[in-house]
């Protein structure tokens, strides 16, 4: 008998246009001490399963069929009161964002003690002692002191440790962890995952680990279930599912994961569910105007670039304090090269990109583009015509109140390159080249999926036929199969149009697949700068070595 058994679970959400089946006849079984991964792309229904187990489904969703049983006893039909008695005591949960999961007005100790006392019959002194033990268990230094501190006094990684302590302190049998490390940096992600792994084994707790990240699955889980459109399409040991996937969807998913260990020319796309759109690079290349290039001369020379932000304002300039976001960074980008910048959040990589894009004024150093110094220049219009940018979040990079044709046409129209019929013609052509139809131009952004939006974003960037493209985390908000498509498109652009790119990402495997050379940033400083392959195989700096060691190994996945 398994610890937690889910049979034929179906969850429905009635909407305006009909009933949406979020989970469709799902079967799962979780053993004590085992980490069971639940992987799938957004909208696959994996978080809904977690909420259904907890009895915390958002309205108007409801369980329409199937059973959930804990240690052989059915819990799916329970009333509110019995469910509440079950929560915490037997099943607990870890949320995604540690910054919002703790009550800001209560001390960490208060929150631990009240949870312990709600479930175990202990005096407050004993509960306090127990709370300190749990903080120690999740490796919070000086637990006796820090127990009386408020959540805002801890860092993000620390807070997630406290969240784990809170989930554990009621001694539950099952913990549901919903994307527990998605909001964290890789270095902290690795620590949190190994903590979860260790605690699950020691305390014999069954863990359901919900994630979209194949790397997390490969490194952490014992058993994995793959979800697609509400259905569990495949379940097996992690080694078996990743190594010998049976289902076509699992195969397509795994083939789309960027490999950390070797560079591939393109992502082999095993398409599933008819979601792939052709990107017509040949058609695009024929109309692209060629620029004479001198391969000897770098397109970009960045020297000693510095940016400071005001941290505390004061009337007297001497009393103002600044934080240095980018500190004396220098690099060159050759014609037709993809230069990558990698770093954790707060390392200054996005600030750097925005300075180069002319969005932030610089506080020091020079940017030279094609022989011309454009640092804080008055008239940037000539430069702006030659650069374009692809943004991180396709849900925020398209103005929701503008039609697609107006969005794509805006840069060309603004630079007075095209107008009227010619502009419309160009927009239609671009839409078809990126794999959408010309009819899409008459629609609004909300009518498209994330991947389609990112294609629209690319079409907008290409409309002015730029020479230089800045990609700021262009795929980090996308599902892995869409990411593979978009990265292939970017590779095409670089190869066929000889576009020069600055590629910014926190994701090391993606960097390895995309870039010719890489710069590693830490706290505003570029610590290392080398050819990509050399950097990955033989990192010089301690920080780079550390970053690489946190990279998911994807052991067990065969290279295609």
């Amino acid at each position, binding site marked *: 008998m398994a610890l937690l058994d889910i049979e034929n679970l179906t969850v429905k959400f009635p909407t*305006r246009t009909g009933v949406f089946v979020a989970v469709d006849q799902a079967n799962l079984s979780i053993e004590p001490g085992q980490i069971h991964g639940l992987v799938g792309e957004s909208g696959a229904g994996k978080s809904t399963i977690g909420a259904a187990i907890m009895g915390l489904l958002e309205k108007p969703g409801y369980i329409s069929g199937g059973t959930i049983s804990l240690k052989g006893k059915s819990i799916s039909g329970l009333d509110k009161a019995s469910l509440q008695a079950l929560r915490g005591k037997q099943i607990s949960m870890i949320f995604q964002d540690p910054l919002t999961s703790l009550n800001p007005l209560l001390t960490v100790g208060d929150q631990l003690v009240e949870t312990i006392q709600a479930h175990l019959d202990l005096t407050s002194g004993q509960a306090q002692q127990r709370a300190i033990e749990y903080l120690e268990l999740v490796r919070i230094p000086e637990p006796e002191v820090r127990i009386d501190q408020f959540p805002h006094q801890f860092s993000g990684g620390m807070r997630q440790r406290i969240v784990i302590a809170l989930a554990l302190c009621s001694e539950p049998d099952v913990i549901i962890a919903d994307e527990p490390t998605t909001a964290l940096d890789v270095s902290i992600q690795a620590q949190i995952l190994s903590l979860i792994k260790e605690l699950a084994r020691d305390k014999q707790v069954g863990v359901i680990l919900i994630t979209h990240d194949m790397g997390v699955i490969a490194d952490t889980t014992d058993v994995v279930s793959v979800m697609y459109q509400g259905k569990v399409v495949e379940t097996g040991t992690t080694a078996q599912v990743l190594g010998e996937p049976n289902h076509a969807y699992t195969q397509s998913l795994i083939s789309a994961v960027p490999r950390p260990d070797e560079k591939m020319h393109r992502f082999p796309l095993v398409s599933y569910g008819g979601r792939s759109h052709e990107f017509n690079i040949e058609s695009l290349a024929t109309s692209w105007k060629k620029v004479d290039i001198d391969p000897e001369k770098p397109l970009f020379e960045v020297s000693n670039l510095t940016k400071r932000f005001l941290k505390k304002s004061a009337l007297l300039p001497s009393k103002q304090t600044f934080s240095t976001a980018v500190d004396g960074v220098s690099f060159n980008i050759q014609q037709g090269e993809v230069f990558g910048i990698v770093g954790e959040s707060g390392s200054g990589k996005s600030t750097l990109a*925005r300075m180069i*894009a*002319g*969005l932030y004024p610089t506080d020091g150093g020079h940017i030279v583009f094609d022989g011309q110094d454009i640092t804080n220049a008055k008239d*940037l*219009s000539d430069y*702006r015509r030659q*650069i*374009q*940018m692809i*943004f*991180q*979040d396709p849900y*925020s*990079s*398209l*103005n*929701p*109140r*503008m039609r697609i044709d107006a*969005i794509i046409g*805006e*840069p060309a129209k*603004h*630079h007075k390159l095209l107008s009227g019929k010619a502009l419309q013609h160009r927009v239609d052509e671009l839409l078809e080249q990126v794999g959408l139809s010309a009819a899409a131009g008459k629609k609004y952004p909300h009518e498209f999926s994330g991947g389609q939006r990112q294609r629209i974003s690319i079409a*907008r960037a290409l409309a*002015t036929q730029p020479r230089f493209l800045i990609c700021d985390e262009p795929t980090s908000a996308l599902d892995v199969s869409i990411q593979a498509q978009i990265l292939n498109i970017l590779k095409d652009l670089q190869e066929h149009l000889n576009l020069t790119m600055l590629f910014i990402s926190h994701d090391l495997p993606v960097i390895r697949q995309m870039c010719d050379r890489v710069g590693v940033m830490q706290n505003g400083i570029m610590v290392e700068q080398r050819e990509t392959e050399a950097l990955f195989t033989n990192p010089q700096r301690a920080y780079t070595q550390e970053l690489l060691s946190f990279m998911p190994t994807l052991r067990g996945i065969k290279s295609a």
Partner: protein
Amino acid sequence: MLTRFCSKWSCLLPERIRTALDSDFMWRLSRSPVAIVSFVVFALLVLSAVFAPWIAPFNPYDPASLDLMNGFTPPATANDFTGQRFLLGSDDQGRDVLSTILYGMRISLFVGFSAVLFAMVLGISLGLIAGYLGGWVDTVIMRIADVQLTFPSILVAMLIFGIAKGVMPAEYRDQMAIWVLIISIGLSDWVQFARVVRGATLVEKGREYVMAAQLIGQPTPIIMWRHILPNVLSPVLVIATISLALAIIAEATLSFLGVGAPPTQPSLGTLIRIGQSFMFSGEWWILLFPACTLLALAFSVNLLGDWLRDTLNPKLR
């Protein structure tokens, strides 16, 4: 009912309106009887105010039609002296109460709409500027807003009204009273708009589509006008509806206190002020009917505003 109506006639409408009618918004409206009823009531009140000169049985401000003998006629009964009947009775001057209500509503609605429009234009512009430009411009605008917010708007309106009254020569006071009223209510209410628009602008400013526009070098006024403004308007609609109810109430309050609409242009508030003095002597209709009209007006607008807020902010339910 509404959806059926829409689908039947939608083929005649231009595409833009057709997609608007087929939206989630209309779907939600069609499923909320309360919203439909309040909308219909409000629309009827507005229409009867607009067409008052054609609908009202009498022109209460035409001295020729007034007969003091008609004074104090109870509703729907014949006058003892003249035999004249009034649906809702007549007041001390022999004016038809229904007609004074229709004309009074014109003033109330005119002041309400104009004041909200004024507050909206002022608040949206300042909120956009403060939110988008930030820095000291933001600090100055929002400090002023904070300070004004500490002073309740009805008090601010009274003060502005009092100051205007003091500054203006006596002979213009009555003539300009309506405009002074509009400006004082409008000035007392811009803060709500500015705060909401500033907040929404700060959110929108961080979105990447704004960065995409900055990247190609679009000038700031165009970014604010073309990119940000259309995206911050939906909360403005909610605030505007709630503000309309508040403005109508504020106007009525000021007029009731005798510091609003002049006696020559009586609004609903003025009518209630007049009616109050007959409360003790038993002529209840002079007070009751204008009071009910004011309540119906404010209530229907508030219901609409409440529904709009729930609909446009789905997370709030």
